[in-house]
Structures are given as structure tokens and as C-alpha cells.
């Protein structure tokens, strides 16, 4: 460099050459604030998702909330109903944890009869992983004097959809956080600024953004988003309800559709695995469509309810190959093959698709999405 560089910047941005690494937005034409944006998992490395690329699922847009006016109300079956300012909450003991959040509707294209051809992140990127810092929810439940006999907690956001859900109190007390920070800085508006409920390992919709109200209750409220939606119709005609835990899932992020292998030789297969039940125990990888499997290396740190990065060296002969990954979590839960999942659940459940993901590499090194 024979000329001086650019001056300092108050807030750094990605290289202009990386402008194509963005969330892919899929929103309702009539209601632009209703829809999703997908994390480009196929462009990212490591386990932490940049905050600006964390997936979004908004029901009616991103509210702009003045932090000094926002309050959290805790009420219901409590000795004393209380409100907290955001400055109040910042004085409480904080705890941070690296956790994935995954929308219950992530990977729903897997239920389709034909494999959708798009980038890995646009199939499976309603999942992201951040370090969330906030106040343990149990501290405020104790301060309000929550009735030990009340076994549910109803949480509500301050957005235009006023999204509400019901959460078992045992989970609320176990490990939930009232998060103020994401990846070291204040949560961004689209991820819940100034306050987000974090429910480790459980369905994304429970992680209420723009949190304004917590009601200690004796029963679930039976909100639209736990009855009409976020339930899964089964072939029997009955529907699964309160499917909170995000089950073990993995996928190969490199190579994946849109990538191209540049001739035979050694490559590193790279992917992500996670489970709402705890840590990842192992990930196996196959390059022949599942006839033979070998263990991938799990990269540290391997954290409970967080993305875990796995890697496996692969000497590609140049012949067509079919790549799969299969995760086992610390409870012994194994990611199912697609045919087994569909045999159990049918194809109309929409939510909670966690089957093995399958990429085909052709002799030109092109990668496509297949079912095997």
C-alpha cells in the first residue's frame, strides 16, 4: 500500500465486496412487515451469526421503541404486580449464554414433494446463533412473588401484532433470560430492542421480541400462535400442540447448492448441528447417500442449545457424490431420515421439520438439493 488508507469509522461495516452476503426476505405482498428473512448460512463460518444477519420472523413489522419509555409489566398470579424500566433491568445481575434461536417453521420446504432448489440458508436459515445477555427471568418472578401453583407464563410483545404465547413456568424458571444485549451490543430493533425473552433451545416464537408483559397464569391462554398456528396437523387428523423443543438438526453448509467444487482433490466438508435438548454428542457424514457414514470432527466449543460447527476432510474423486450429515445429541436423539419423518408425521405439519439434508455433487462439481 503506497497511499494512506481510509480513516476511522464509528461503526464498522462489512467489506463492500461482501454486499451480497445478506438476509433473503420473503414477505407478504400486502403486508410488507409480515414474513421472514433467512440467514445466509451457506456464506458464514464458525458458530456465531452476525447480528445484522440473524433471521427475522415478524408478524407485523419492527416497532421503533424508545428505550427510556419502555416498561415490562409482571402481573397475574403474583403477590405484587410490578413494572420495570430498561434502566432498572440493566442493574440486575446479568448472565450471557451462546444460544441458537430457530423458528418452528424453519426447513418447511422439506415437506414439499420435490426438493426446492435454492441456497442452504434459504431452506434452513430461520435459525441463527448469538450470545444473549440479560437478567435471569427467575429473579423477577421471585421479586413479584409468583404463585408456585401457577404453572404457565404468558408473554407478549409490543409490536403491532402484540404477539403472545404461553410458556410452562418450569422452563421460565429454569434458564430463560430477559435479554438486553445480543453479541455484546444492545439488541437490534429487528431482534427485539430493547428487551427480548430468550427461551433456550425452544421454538423461536416463544422468544418474544419487544417484550412488554409477563402474566403468571394457571393455564395457557390458547393464543392464535399456539393453536391455529405453530401446531402440526398429523395424518390422523389430530394436531401436535406445545411442540416447544427444537429437535436435533444438522446440515452441510459447505459445499451446498450454489457452491461449485473446482475439480477433484481434498475438500473440507463443513456444517452446523444443534439441538434444543442440549449438547451435540456426534455428527456423522456420508458422501455416498447414506450407505457409509464416518464421524465428523466437532469443533470446540460444543455448547448446549448452541450451533456446533463440524468438519470432515473429503478427497473427492470427481465422480458424482451425495452428501449427508446426521447428528446425535447428548440425550441420544438422532436426526431422522426424511422418509422416516414423513412416515411418522405426514406432510401437512409444516412446523418442526428436522430430517437429514441431502446435497448431490455432479461430475462438474455443481451442487444441488435432492431427496435420498
Amino acid at each position, binding site marked *: 500500500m503506497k497511499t494512506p488508507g481510509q480513516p476511522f469509522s464509528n461503526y464498522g461495516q462489512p467489506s463492500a465486496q461482501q454486499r451480497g452476503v445478506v438476509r433473503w426476505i420473503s414477505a407478504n405482498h400486502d403486508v410488507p412487515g409480515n414474513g421472514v428473512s433467512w440467514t445466509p448460512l451457506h456464506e458464514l463460518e464458525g458458530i456465531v451469526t452476525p447480528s445484522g444477519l440473524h433471521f427475522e420472523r415478524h408478524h407485523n413489522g419492527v416497532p421503533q421503541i424508545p428505550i427510556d419509555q419502555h416498561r415490562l*409489566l409482571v402481573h397475574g398470579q403474583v403477590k405484587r404486580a410490578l413494572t420495570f424500566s430498561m434502566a432498572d433491568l440493566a442493574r440486575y445481575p446479568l448472565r450471557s449464554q451462546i444460544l441458537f434461536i430457530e423458528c418452528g417453521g424453519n426447513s418447511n420446504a422439506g415437506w414439499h414433494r420435490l426438493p426446492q432448489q435454492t441456497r442452504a440458508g434459504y431452506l434452513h436459515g430461520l435459525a441463527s446463533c448469538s450470545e444473549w445477555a440479560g437478567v435471569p427471568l427467575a429473579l423477577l418472578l421471585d421479586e413479584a412473588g409468583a404463585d408456585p401453583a401457577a404453572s404457565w407464563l404468558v408473554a407478549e410483545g409490543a409490536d*403491532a401484532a402484540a404477539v403472545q404465547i404461553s410458556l410452562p413456568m418450569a422452563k421460565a424458571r429454569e*434458564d430463560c433470560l430477559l435479554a438486553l444485549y445480543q453479541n455484546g451490543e444492545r439488541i437490534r430493533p429487528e431482534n427485539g430492542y430493547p428487551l427480548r425473552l430468550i427461551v433456550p*433451545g425452544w421454538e423461536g416464537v416463544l422468544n418474544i421480541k419487544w417484550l412488554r408483559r409477563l402474566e403468571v397464569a394457571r393455564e395457557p391462554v*390458547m393464543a392464535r400462535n399456539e393453536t*391455529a398456528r405453530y401446531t402440526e396437523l398429523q395424518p390422523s387428523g389430530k394436531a401436535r400442540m406445545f411442540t416447544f423443543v427444537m429437535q436435533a438438526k444438522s446440515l452441510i453448509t459447505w459445499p451446498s447448492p450454489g457452491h461449485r467444487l473446482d475439480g477433484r482433490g481434498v475438500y473440507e466438508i463443513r456444517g452446523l448441528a444443534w439441538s434444543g435438548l442440549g449438547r451435540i454428542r456426534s455428527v456423522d457424514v456420508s458422501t455416498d447417500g447414506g450407505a457409509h457414514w464416518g464421524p465428523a470432527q466437532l469443533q470446540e466449543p460444543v455448547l448446549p442449545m448452541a450451533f456446533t460447527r463440524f468438519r470432515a476432510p473429503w478427497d473427492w474423486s470427481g465422480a458424482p457424490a451425495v452428501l449427508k450429515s446426521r447428528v446425535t445429541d447428548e440425550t441420544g436423539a438422532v436426526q431422522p431420515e426424511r422418509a422416516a419423518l414423513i412416515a411418522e408425521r405426514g406432510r401437512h405439519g409444516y412446523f418442526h421439520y428436522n430430517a437429514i439434508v441431502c446435497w448431490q455433487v455432479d461430475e462438474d462439481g455443481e451442487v444441488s438439493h435432492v431427496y435420498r
Partner: protein
Amino acid sequence: MARFPTSIVEARHFVLVTLVAVAGSALAAGTAPAAKATETPTPHLGQPAGPDLVARWNLSVYPDGRGLPAGQGTAAQGRPIYQARCAKCHGAEGEGASGGTLVGRGSLTDPDPDQTVGNYWPYATTLFDFIRRAMPMDAPATLSDDEVYAVSAYLLYLNRIVGVEEQLDADSLPRIRMPNRDGFIGVDADVPGAGH
């Protein structure tokens, strides 16, 4: 003056003990309840919230009708409101467009079933709760309570669950038994009243 250094020592000791307790609970995260929470000193900054404030903020309507406001409406009253405020996204007769399909009584075991208010939603109270808080999406929470009762009644009428002149209010709405009331199986928590 003699007490000053002593209290600092005590304060340091106290902080150290607290940190050990927090680290202990962090190690146990994910495997055991954070039983230490009650032992963690906190500043207790919550401000008392009186009944008026709670009533103003609280929008939740429970299956037993708790949370329903005064007011009433019928399907006949709801039809013009639906057409003016809802049909753009949900279709003239609730058949769905950019918004969800709301009307239909097809079997849930059909090959490709619509999941509607009539054949899927388990509680009529959910209709009131959701319409009041979130609909219409271009102007949420702008319908009066009477209008919400009326639009709820109209959707139940289109689904052949109530009559066109049947009045819905805080008393009658929770007493409607929806066709799919028993259609749900709890996975990670029990469904109340489902025989557990």
C-alpha cells in the same frame, strides 16, 4: 471510621460468595433448574403496578372467557365490517388470499386440508383475542369491542357454528364449543382438559 474498612471487607466477601453462586448455576444451565436464583441478591427495583394499569395493558382472553370486555355483536352486524376491513386479505367469504383461509369445514384427514377457524381452531375466545390485538394488519387494534364481537360472530357464522342473529358477548362466546376442540395432543406440555 473504624467501621468503614470492616464494611468494605464484608462487602468484598459478599460479592465473592455471590459470584461463586452465579458461576455454579451457569455450569448447571440446561441440566437443572437455576435453584440459586432466589439466593442471588438483586436491587428490587420493580415499581408497584395498580389494577388500573394492569387492566389497561392486559389484552389476553382465556378459554374460560376471562379478559373478555363488555359489548356484543352478531354475524349480521359483522358482515359489513368484515367486508370493509378484512375481505381485502382474507377474501369475500373468508376463502383466503394474502391472508389465511378462515372458512371451511373440510375433514382434517383429507389429502390436502385447509386448516380454518371452522375445522381447526379449538377455542372461539382465541378469535376475539387475536382480532382485537392484531387485526386488521393495516390498522391493528382499531376495531371497537362491539366490532370485534361482530366480526368474530360473522366468521363463526360463515363456518356454520352460530346463527346470523345470534348475539356474542362475554357470556356466550366462551360457551361455544368449537368442532375441533379435542383435536390437539400436547407434546412438551399437557393440553388442559385433554384428559391428562
